[in-house]
């Protein structure tokens, strides 16, 4: 856990945020730090503010913010949250198998 596997393929990320909402602001900081630390220059990061560009959010099916989408390398992966959970984030960005699902509360 936590060991970043460096891959030759370029990492392409897109982060959907909602203006200056605290979680969104934190997510931007977190994703930038991770990229800098683990992926250095081999990454591309887009930040989309759905409040500014609602149509993009709608088209891409953004439900909650912040949402990070790993477009490349495949498979496409979605991570929701302010990305403060670095372990989960790295797992999502590097693993190719089944991701750990979001723990769901017991159905009531």
């Amino acid at each position, binding site marked *: 856990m936590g060991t970043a596997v460096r891959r030759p393929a370029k990492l392409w990320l897109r982060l959907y945020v909602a203006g200056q909402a605290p979680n969104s602001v934190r997510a931007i900081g977190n994703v930038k730090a991770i990229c800098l630390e683990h992926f250095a220059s081999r990454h591309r990061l887009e930040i989309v503010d759905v409040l500014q560009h609602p149509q993009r959010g709608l088209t891409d099916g953004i439900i*909650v913010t912040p949402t990070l989408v790993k477009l490349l390398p495949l498979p496409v992966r979605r991570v929701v949250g302010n990305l403060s*959970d670095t372990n989960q984030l790295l*797992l999502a960005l590097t693993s190719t198998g089944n991701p750990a699902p979001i723990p769901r509360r017991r159905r009531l």
Partner: protein
Amino acid sequence: MKSRSAPVTVPKVLTGIRGFDDITAGGLPRGRTTLVMGGPGCGKTVFALQTLVNGARRDKEAGVFVAFEEETSQIVANASTFGWDLPALARKKLLFFDARLSPDAIKAGEFDLVGLLGLLRSKADAMHATRIVFDGMDVLLGLLDNPAAEHREIYRIREWLSETGLTGIITQKVGGNNGDHRYHFLQFMVDCVIMLRHQVVDGSAFRNLRVIKYRGSGFSADEFPITLTAAGLQLTHRGPTELTYAVSDERISSGLSRLDHMLQGGYHRGSNILISGAPGTAKSTLAGLFAAAACVRGERTLYVSFDEGAAQIVRNLRSVGIHFAPHLKSGLLQMLSMRSRGPNVVDQFGALRARVRDLNPRCLVIDPLSALSTNATHLALADAAHLFLDFLKMEGITVVNTSLVDGVGTDEVTATAISAIADTWIQVSYVVQDGERNRALTIVKSRGTWHSNQVRELTLSSEGVTLADVFIAQGKVLMGVARWEWEQEEQAGAKRTHVAAELKRLQLQLAQAEAAARLEVVRTEMEARSAEIAVLADATGSASTLLKTDRAVLRKMRHADEDVRPGAHTAPRARAATVGRRRVH
């Protein structure tokens, strides 16, 4: 019924859900949030969706449906059973927003709904939407998995709604007596809370609705039965506590003139009539007569039958001279066959109510109403039947219900639940006598009208239905062949009496003639006697004169001197003549 009569200050938005707008005096609070809670399958989604659909269709208000739990295409497909034509509405007035989080998504820290609400706002603004539904809030809150975050997001939604001025409905699953903080918190947050409940009583499922809170408005706090009909959800309520139906003095024919006569002119318009009896006592026939008579008057009529197909009823009634075919063809008569063992009794009455609204008949037949009791508790049936009849009364629809009484006896108990609210109760029963089974009809009660207390015999034939007088002999009611014999006997008796009288008259005439004849004999005899007397008197007179003359002649001849004493010489002779005449008589 607990009813707060505070003045209504909160602006409201009609849900278009029948009954609900009545109990809340106008629907949901406009520009505020309503929470709809309930277990699975209670109808939360339908309630929310129906409110949107009605808004779009009736009030031309656009709406947004945010689905957290179900796929939107599935929601649209499910709702297609209600005939709302969602695809057409979805193009213009409704937006279905699939807000399900991908199950593959990974959670890495806290998230919020700022983005979602921003997106929804842009959409809602573009559509000029006024209503929004968040369906399956529990799913979303489950993802947050943090009480503080949940509270925060609920707050956010509420704030967002009040900012945008949208009327919001949040649906939320709950199970049983849930003590979860989340639900209490939600209830405090919103302006209106509606609880839906699904329960099973004696194997029948019932859905109920209850308004738990409504800020700034009066509401009825009772639990009301709700039903899912072809047109969507509807709520059954008693209406105002005060009964204020228009009452009609108009009489309409029962279809049987003799029965009309027994009821002083027929059934009252808008009343409900119960015909109870054992199987085969011609309940359906009486109901059929009523329906046919209504059609002949040109009144739209609905004939609802349970467990018996329309074609079968038409055929059976034709055999007693009641012809439905022309009325079915003209469209005046509609027939609806339902299965008694189907959904629960509340749903059945709900479905029936919806059909009645659709067809808007003047006259209605339910044959038999008691079919519904087979899968309902007594109370539930009585309640549902009561509400339904109440509704019909409000609409001024005249209804003839038949009720099957179990067994062949004269058990009047089974129908009690309905009979208590029936305006006219006609009972048909069998009378078994002298090896026959005959049908007897009596009017048990008829409100607001004098009615005959007599038992009548009901006879069916291919020519039709007749009601005949019955006879009482030796303390027994005579029916069937016994009645016929009695009638024959009466006719024969009358004939005998007539003949006897004629005979007597002739005898008397004869006696009279005899007497007259005798009188003639006596009179003739009298005449004869009188004649004799006259003759005799004449003879006597001549004799006396002769005697005097003779004596005078004799004296002259003797030259006797005249007796100077007055009467001296005549007296003795006159005396003698008198004696002699006496002797003659």
